[in-house]
């Protein structure tokens, strides 16, 4: 790797993305207020979107912002505000002594191991998948066409399965959020 120079721009983009992602992620963990955590989450999500753009996944970057920032985090914020859990949400007493250290150790070791494995394995660059039949990955609008083709051929079944997934999620959410008066009276 040493001796190869990367364009300043690419490095800069990487650093920006990495900063956004990591600062945001640490923010989610460290911040006490859930609204602030949600905002940190948005930061990470944007960082990921930047990283997507840098890796010529423009379409996904846009979808990332629309789905995550535009819907998921809004939903989070909605629930936080709706339930009014925003201000008093601190870190609670740990139920098991040393759980945090243990989790940290476990996760740390796993991630370190992963990084070592990532670094030490040379993946098969150029292994062509069935889907593109060896055609190189396009950028820009060609990319959308490729994505669309893949979704409706190789991943057709998966795509149809998402329909089931969304139906069950919507029905589930409504069943859960539904409030039945008879029951509330009983609870009260």
């Amino acid at each position, binding site marked *: 790797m040493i001796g190869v120079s990367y364009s300043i721009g690419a490095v800069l983009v990487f650093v920006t993305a990495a900063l956004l992602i990591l600062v945001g992620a640490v923010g989610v963990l460290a911040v006490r207020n859930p609204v602030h955590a949600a905002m940190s989450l948005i930061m990470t999500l944007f960082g990921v979107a930047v990283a997507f753009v840098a890796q010529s996944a423009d379409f996904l970057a846009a979808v990332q912002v629309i789905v995550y920032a535009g819907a998921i985090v809004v939903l989070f914020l909605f629930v936080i505000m709706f339930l009014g859990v925003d201000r008093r949400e601190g870190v609670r007493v740990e139920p098991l002594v040393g759980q945090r250290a243990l989790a940290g150790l476990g996760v740390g070791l796993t991630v370190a*191991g*992963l990084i*070592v*494995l*990532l670094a*030490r*394995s*040379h*993946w*098969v660059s150029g*292994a*062509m*998948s*069935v889907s593109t039949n060896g055609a190189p990955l396009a950028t820009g609008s060609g990319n959308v066409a490729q994505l669309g083709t893949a979704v*409706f*051929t*190789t*991943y*057709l*079944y*998966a795509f149809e*399965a*998402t329909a*089931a*997934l969304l*139906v*069950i*999620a919507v*029905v*589930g*959410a409504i*069943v*859960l959020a539904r409030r*039945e008066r008879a*029951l509330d009276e009983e609870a009260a």
Partner: protein
Amino acid sequence: MPSIDYLAILPALVLLGASVLTLMLSALLRHSLSARVATSLSVLAGLVVLATSVAQWVDVARHGASSTIDHAVVLDGFSVVATGVIGVSLVMASLIAHDWLVRGPVSASHFYTLSLAASAGALVMVQANDLVVIFLGLEILSIGLYVLAALDRHRSASAEAALKYFLLGGFASAIFIYGAALVYGATGTTNLSAIGYFLAGNVLLAPGLLVAGGALLLVGFAFKVAAVPFHLWSPDVYEGAPTPVTGFMASVVKVGAFAALLRVLVSALSSQLTTWRPIIWVLVALSTLVGASMALVQRNVKRMLAYSSINHAGFILLGVWAGTVRGSAGALFYLMTYAPVVLASFGVLALVGGARDDSHDIDRFRGLARRQPVLGAALAVLLLSQLGVPLTTGFYAKYGVLLAAVDAGGGPIALIALIGAAIAAYFYLRWVLALYAEEPIETDRVSVGRASGLAIALGVVATLLFGLWPGPLAALAQHATLLFHP
């Protein structure tokens, strides 16, 4: 557009269709859908799935295994039989749920919309030949179950169980899909067959990525099937979720997850046998021993069955460990026989648990067999089957996986698993003893609904009948595995 073999995906379509139909009926009829109609619909759907799987079996037996929709779905003996098992499980789970729905706070249409769709998810997993499809099937199944677990509004434990299940289930899913991403990076595809071909044709000099990915996939599956040490959620969730839902979890989820796990390991990663075997070895040893030991100290029977099902998961993993045809057949046979038994067991629990489904202390079972000999004897048979006593299917289930394990050179691990079974014997027998205890606790007579009764009877008859004559099922499992899609 890729060609589509509709016969292959028919079972999943039937279940989804039934789910949507239930939903629409409940929305379009003036009066809310009666439990009787909804249950009938669900039972019918299950039976249709079973019938379809028979048709599929004929097809597979005649033309061999095939894959369709651009190799995303396979139609092979293994998937067909697993489909049939899911169909049967669904029928029994619906019957068990019926009595609970009649008296409970949950709307039947909600329950069945979700449970049918979740079963469809399990079917997707069973047939999936692509990591992404497995992931989606897993999520359909899991999301349905999260909601099902939270359905009982009378007990706050229900929603709490759902939350725990959701958080750890989501964690598992994330780990799984991360593993899938790494495997994709290592092999350049997410298709299981393609991964298999790639690994068969290429030697990876530094397979770190593949190892890491495979390990994460395994961890994800281990969470879903509640193998130790990834089992922590299961006792709480089993306890908190409504009992019929728990039965559903213990049967359908296990079938789906194990079928997918087997397919991933056998179809895609069979060349990496030496890598994943040690991991499974540890999982088997821990699951059988810890599952059995922890069950000893429980007083709540649902927690007891949760640990027991961990123990059983360990046994099924033993078949997976073998990684041979015999192993897959053993695991499949185990699933075929375990599902009805555990469902019928939870059927009894749902009845004994009372109208509010909240009395699951073992003391409630004291003297049950004295007061109601038939119900008590049925539960005793089911428990003995889970214990693995001969003349019940439980024995042959264990036999099948042990045979495979010993065949693959796993004498020590087979012995460890059997010692786990011996420990488990303690609490099954303690329970049986309580059933026949002489000084019955003053409790009301348990009323056995017709539907639950039928389901329990089915479970008992199945375990005794095939316990006496396991030949057909064993042959079926064997043939099914021989017709495995490469």
